[in-house]
């Protein structure tokens, strides 16, 4: 606990990461990994058929992808790591130590990808004939390959976070990289990216080819064939992927697919997912058999559907691995499984360098009429409770915002007073009742401090600022002990 705690008390830290990460995945899969090979195929197809219309269409679609991937795509790519580093620096630190060389290679591949997309776009108009055109088409396929390699490396890290496999025993990069979830997830994401690219291109074609141009039907039909071609592989990859997910995580499926409140609706939701997937296939089938019958608005339906399905898949993947952020190695609160015995013995705060000062609203929860010594002791207990909350809970929970602890306590205890006795018993055993929750990491005394802090949330609805707003103080006790990571 060597870092000040960044905290967003309305949106929630998870909301920040999810917003950036989902946007990046949609751009990366749809406009880079999937679309670059599709554009190269369109260019190659037009070249083989000696039909310049394909060339013009491919260039326009590429230009859209170029603008989005090099702006929003690149920014969100960096944004993921920045936001994760802010919210959970311990998990990103562990991942960096394990995947250092893989990440280094990924960085080189990414730089190459950026150079290739620049070269591919900027030479389109000049490398038009003969050998130059063939070279340009090869450039397009190379760009597609490098886009895929960047995803292939990152997918390994995502798989590792779900199930590190043999890495827990031998701690080698090879074991971490070839984790049990890696290849199944890659086999799912690759055709998903290709299909998503096809769906995006289907929406773009009518913008670039006029309604009365017969080429519009030809282009829609060809892109629809590309889209449909990869659909069976998504199903096969998804089946393999689901089989590779550890059984303990599948117990979280209902809550991860929906939320705790709606977890009883899993069957209905899965039917909605199946219906949405069928709707995508149906529109694409009609686009192949009768491209002239499909209006532009109907082509937007598969796009919205696949964007929603992919975004929701990412949500499920993120949640299902709870209570861990790195399977069986680190809990979602950033604390290592192996450190728990130590933290329970010495207390969490013994290793916390920084303290998040109490807000005026929090201070006001302690009666001003108390004798000064008693009030100072009460404020000290509250301060310790807040520090426990910030270190053990705030990575996933807010106080009253998204996934707020107050809402959960209200659901469980209603309007009864949230006394430390009432909430303390629950906090001590919550991981047994709700397997996606990590066990409480601190000492028995700290459980009491946290319960005291939670009690005042029943009346105090003021948002709790993170270190980025309220600043921090250095805990006076922090100098007496080494940080957890330094004791090994």
């Amino acid at each position, binding site marked *: 606990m060597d870092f000040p705690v960044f905290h967003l008390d309305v949106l929630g830290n998870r909301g920040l990461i999810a917003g950036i990460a989902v946007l990046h995945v949609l751009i990366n899969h749809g406009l880079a990994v999937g679309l670059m090979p599709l554009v190269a195929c369109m260019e190659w197809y037009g070249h083989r058929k000696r039909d310049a219309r394909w060339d013009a269409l491919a260039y326009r679609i590429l230009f859209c992808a170029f603008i989005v991937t090099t702006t929003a795509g690149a920014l969100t790519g960096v944004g993921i790591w920045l936001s994760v580093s802010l919210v959970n620096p311990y998990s990103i630190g562990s991942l960096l130590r394990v995947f250092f060389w893989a990440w280094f290679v990924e960085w080189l591949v990414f730089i190459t990808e950026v150079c290739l997309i620049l070269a591919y776009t900027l030479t389109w108009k000049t490398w038009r004939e003969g050998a130059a055109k063939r070279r340009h088409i090869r450039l397009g396929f190379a760009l597609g390959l490098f886009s895929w390699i960047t995803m292939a490396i990152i997918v390994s890290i995502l798989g590792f976070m779900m199930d590190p496999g043999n890495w827990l025993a031998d701690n080698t990069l090879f074991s971490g990289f070839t984790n049990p979830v890696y290849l199944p997830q890659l086999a799912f994401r690759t055709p998903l990216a290709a299909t998503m690219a096809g769906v995006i291109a289907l929406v773009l074609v009518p913008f670039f080819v006029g309604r009365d141009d*017969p080429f519009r*039907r030809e282009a829609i039909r060809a892109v629809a064939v590309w889209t449909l071609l990869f659909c069976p592989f998504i199903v096969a990859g998804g089946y393999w992927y689901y089989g590779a997910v550890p059984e303990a995580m599948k117990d979280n499926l209902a809550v991860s697919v929906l939320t705790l409140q709606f977890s009883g609706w899993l069957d209905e939701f899965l039917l909605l997912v199946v219906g949405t997937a*069928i709707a995508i296939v149906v529109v694409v089938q009609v686009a192949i058999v009768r491209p002239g019958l499909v209006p532009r608005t109907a082509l937007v339906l598969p796009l919205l559907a696949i964007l929603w399905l992919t975004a929701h898949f990412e949500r499920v993947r993120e949640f299902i691995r709870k209570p861990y952020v790195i399977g069986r190695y680190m809990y979602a609160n950033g604390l290592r499984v192996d450190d728990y015995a130590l933290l329970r013995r010495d207390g969490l705060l013994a290793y916390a360098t920084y303290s998040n000062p109490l807000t005026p609203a929090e201070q006001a929860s302690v009666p001003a009429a108390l004798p000064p010594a008693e009030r100072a002791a009460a404020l000290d207990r509250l301060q310790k409770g807040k520090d426990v909350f910030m270190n053990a809970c705030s990575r996933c929970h807010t106080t009253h915002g998204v996934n707020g602890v107050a809402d959960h306590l209200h659901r469980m205890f209603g309007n009864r007073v949230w006394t430390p006795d009432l909430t303390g018993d629950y906090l001590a055993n919550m991981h047994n009742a709700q397997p996606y929750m990590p066990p409480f990491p601190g000492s028995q005394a700290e459980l009491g401090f946290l319960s005291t802090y939670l009690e005042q949330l029943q009346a105090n609805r003021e948002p709790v600022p993170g270190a980025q707003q309220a600043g921090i103080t250095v805990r006076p006790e922090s100098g007496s002990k080494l940080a957890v990571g330094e004791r090994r």
Partner: protein
Amino acid sequence: MRLLSWMDAAPHRGPVLNIVMLVLLLGMIGNTALLLCVGAATIAVSAIGGLRRAMRAMASPDRSHLPLDRIAIWLPGATALGMCAVALLLIVENPASSVAHSLGLVLFAFELVMLVLPSERPSTAGVSKG
């Protein structure tokens, strides 16, 4: 008379209407075993028709040798067959009054139509040689 002339205007309208009526009838009878038998037989017959059309397209003298064009001949039929199987699964696995069962019936009818409907031939008008 207007209905007859509407059906005569395009050769595929008759089979499409037949399929819709067949699925409606099977749905109203509500016997899953009967639906499975008749449905499977209908798929087989439609698949044979689709196979003949695809073989003819492959043997056509003006066919393209490019992979996309070959895939485009086989993919719609193969997909429709697969989706018919999904539809039958939805029908068989869910009770008659459920949303999933109804979705299966609609999908089954749609995919049968996809099986019997010949693809539009792409027009080559307006090709500008690059």
